[in-house]
């Protein structure tokens, strides 16, 4: 038993950044959509304290931008992915240069467009949040964080937006 605990302890010591994640995804409640109705959605990521990731538009071309992409089911489109503006920040390793980064909470917005023919039902949508993290002294290899959420296509109550003609009782004069 002592040997087992010792070996578990040793394994903890050897965890490298290759298995480490610097960003967490905040799980989403099931998103309910109706065919033909554009539905806004937002995805929240938490960058771990002490680290930062490049924004979607880093200041130099060599830097790896943060991106979010999805592989939605057929008849469903996820579009207009909108990233927050990066914070222009300088770091101790080069106080003269400002980098466009995200730290803390990162909220990425998008819209879901179910086609009119989208069948009803619940789907799991898979995606990937790609980022590259650094701290004040070192940078860590680029990572791909799997993202998924449940999406329910519902017929819902049909609400017509066309003006209805006034209906009068034939008995009213």
């Amino acid at each position: 038993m002592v040997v087992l605990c010792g070996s578990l302890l040793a394994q903890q010591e050897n965890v490298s950044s290759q298995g480490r994640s610097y960003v967490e995804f905040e799980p989403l409640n099931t998103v309910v959509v109706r065919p033909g109705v554009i539905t806004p959605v937002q995805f929240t990521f938490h960058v771990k304290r002490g680290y930062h990731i490049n924004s979607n538009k880093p200041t130099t071309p060599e830097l790896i931008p943060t991106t979010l992409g999805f592989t939605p089911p057929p008849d469903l489109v996820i579009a207009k992915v909108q990233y927050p503006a990066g914070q222009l920040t300088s770091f101790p390793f080069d106080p003269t240069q400002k980098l466009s980064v995200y730290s803390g909470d990162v909220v990425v917005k998008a819209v879901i467009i179910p086609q009119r023919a989208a069948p009803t039902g619940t789907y799991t949508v898979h995606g990937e949040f790609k980022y590259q993290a650094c701290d004040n002294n070192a940078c860590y290899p680029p990572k791909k964080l799997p993202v998924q959420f449940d999406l329910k296509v519902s017929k819902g109550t049909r609400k017509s937006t066309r003006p209805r003609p006034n209906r009068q009782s034939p008995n009213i004069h």
Partner: protein
Amino acid sequence: MSVVVVVITGLLFLGKSFTPRPPGVAQASNNEDQFNGKPAPDFELPQLGAKGKTLKLSELKGKAVVVNFWATWCEPCKIEMPWLVDLQKKYSGEGLQIIGIAMDDTDDQTISEFAHKMGVNYPVLKGSEKVADLYGGIDGLPTLFFVDRSGKIVEHELGLRSLSVIEANIKKSLGSSESARAAATQ
């Protein structure tokens, strides 16, 4: 008694699990004990901008070698690079050879052009996961391994260190004139 042992070991395990390693502080790698004093793992990698040439670490025996793992997307690496260029100039006469190992996924030409723009005056090799694994799996960049003339790792740094620390490690790898003579006669 055995219950007491299990509880104590469990508490030690939990303590280690929840002790965060502070970010933002340059530190020696987890593999410091694994490598210092041991022979630097040999490797052969393609040399960028050298038309099919490769470079093998063991061919540099007799020289003090600095193995620098870096990438074009690593901002601290760009701070360190000009220092390495100056140190290569300063100590090449004493037998220093710096080699850069680029851990980029991007194409060779982009890496070569970047290194040229930075004024790099030492060989730049295209890195691989295999070589990174030989060196304990490169946790972060920049990572420097300082290798003495006999091929042993004398120091290892993960993250950006100051110029003075890097220079001190280079002097350590160059060693005394006695060890230099001993290495030269091997």
